[in-house]
């Protein structure tokens, strides 16, 4: 299996860098890659260098006016930029923003090409998954929506039915909107409820419009949901949705910001969910898609303790059909501990003692079950 998997990486993907105090930090990519290499899980021949995306490819989703605004951002007055969501607290300007952002889009398209043109079964691009990018507007740390562009690219050039699965703690609003009226792209986002958390959308009642009605799925779960409830409803929902939709290929957005260490969210999960998420994705890709699976990154703001382990497990599960366990390689810990502001974890799993106990657990679980039932109302009606 392993020769059929590709890992998209290049140092240039780290150029997507807002500033040093910004929560979105692509050092995560190096940490993940080196963790896999130190674990003897990633071979040089599996790594592929990304191409850049052309303007035409970016325009599969984005308005040419917006692309122009990104290109000329550094010469533009701030009032003009904020109309496009640029130059804000969340998406401030940085040098060569267009180039860095198209590089990420190109990396995701490289992953698609690896699978659909060059014979790989699965490919990952952890630099991608920027799901808050909109047609005309940047938001939530995202400039170009590589995931949406890649899905549109798959539709235009390969005509496959795409199942997009978004497990970021934030709602995958940009991707949902791009395919809201499209019955050939099914989007499923599980996320912390938007009542408190950005962006605020992703209600279970958002189901798509026109031809696409019934092909957008949202599972907003309560703050402090934790592992058990998360895993059980995620697995049930994804299996039901995949059976209903019968996808040809699966694209996953593997945001790693649902962990109790994550500073931006309140789901309070542990590493256990980052094993079950890819395990279920693998199962679906094998059952419906001949194994075809493209995995992307996304959010993840504890870049030292959470993201490298979570993303490495996606690759481990693709490769071995099971996660790694036990201790992390010393080589990796020794190299990075001096740069990390916190103590790096020593094992792939979190020990029980550090998982926080949360009040209202029973109520939260009951609420999530209720949301799951409403989500699946449509899949269970057999369509004629």
């Amino acid at each position, binding site marked *: 299996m392993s020769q059929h998997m590709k890992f998209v990486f290049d140092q240039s993907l780290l150029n997507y860098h807002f500033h040093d105090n910004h*929560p979105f930090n692509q050092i995560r990519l190096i940490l993940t890659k080196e963790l896999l290499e130190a674990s003897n899980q990633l071979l040089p021949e599996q790594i592929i260098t990304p191409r850049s995306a052309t303007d035409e490819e970016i325009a599969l989703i984005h308005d040419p006016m917006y692309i122009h605004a990104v290109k000329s951002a550094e010469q533009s007055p701030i009032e003009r930029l904020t109309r496009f969501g640029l130059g*804000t*607290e*969340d998406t401030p300007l940085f040098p060569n923003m267009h180039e860095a952002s198209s590089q990420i889009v190109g990396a995701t398209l490289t992953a698609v090409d690896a699978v659909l043109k060059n014979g790989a079964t699965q490919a990952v691009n952890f630099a991608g998954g920027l799901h*808050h990018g909109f047609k005309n507007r940047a*938001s*939530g*740390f995202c400039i170009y929506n590589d995931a949406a562009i890649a899905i549109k690219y798959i539709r235009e050039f390969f005509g496959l039915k795409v199942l997009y699965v978004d497990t970021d703690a*934030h709602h995958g*609003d940009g991707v949902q909107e791009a395919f809201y009226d499209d019955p050939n792209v099914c989007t499923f986002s599980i996320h912390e409820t938007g*009542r*408190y*958390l*950005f*962006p*605020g*959308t992703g209600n279970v009642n958002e189901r798509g419009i026109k031809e696409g009605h019934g092909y957008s799925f949202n599972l907003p779960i309560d*703050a*402090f949901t934790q592992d058990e409830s998360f895993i059980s409803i995620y697995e049930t929902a994804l299996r039901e949705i995949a059976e209903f939709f019968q996808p040809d290929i699966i694209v996953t957005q593997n945001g790693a910001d649902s962990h*109790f*260490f*994550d*500073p*931006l969210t*309140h789901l*309070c999960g542990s590493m256990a969910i980052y094993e079950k998420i890819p395990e279920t994705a693998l199962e679906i890709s094998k059952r419906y898609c001949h194994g075809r699976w493209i995995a992307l990154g996304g959010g993840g703001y*504890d870049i030292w303790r959470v993201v490298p382990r979570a993303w490495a497990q996606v690759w481990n599960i693709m490769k071995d059909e099971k996660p790694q366990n036990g201790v992390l390689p010393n080589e990796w810990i020794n190299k990075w501990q001096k740069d990390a502001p916190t103590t790096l974890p020593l094992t792939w799993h979190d020990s029980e003692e*550090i998982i*926080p106990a*949360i*009040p209202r657990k029973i109520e939260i679980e009951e609420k999530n079950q209720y949301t799951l039932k409403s989500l699946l109302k449509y899949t269970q009606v057999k369509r004629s």
Partner: protein
Amino acid sequence: MHVEDIMNRNVITLGSTDTIAKAHQLLVDHKIRHIPIVDEDYYIVGIVSDRDIRDASPSIFTTDTDKSVLDKQISTIMSSPVLTAHPLDFVEEVARIFYDREIACLPVVSNEKLVGVITEKDLLYTLIQLTGTHVQGSHIEVKVPHKPGILPEVASVFGNHGVNISSVLIYPYKNNPEYKILVFRVQTMNPQPIIRDLRSSGYELMWPNNIPEPRL
């Protein structure tokens, strides 16, 4: 906010001699629930709702129905006189009328002519705008003592971070008149620095920020 800011100016109307059948067709075609009835000068003489028309229609359960009742004139079932609003009335006054009179539509009249309609749905849409939930944002609730000066004090914490506030609401705290809940919707994905500052300034945060973070 004035009625003219949210009212619908493209009003579907009928004359009092039009048939009930015609009114029914308009309700279906335009997905509306109320039709103002006007004379040739656009002066309002009545209003019909979907309920008036249903009351006048034969039941779907009766067979061999005589549909000729639907050929009667609309004047036979319309309500009059009609409660109306003025374009410069406040939206909250309209809400009060809807609530008190248990109705869901007011024709808007200026210089004795019909100029628009305002419905329950327009009010709900406005409410969504007021909560700020129509734009991307994060939601933070702070419990504060109900005393002068507290709002600017708390708001200044947001101001210090240069983050746009898309809405502020002040709720009562349960039935306790001593406290209020301030609800801020802010246009950022990273409210953490604000939350940290609010906490360190001693403000009490509500769910889900009331649980001390294990990570800090």
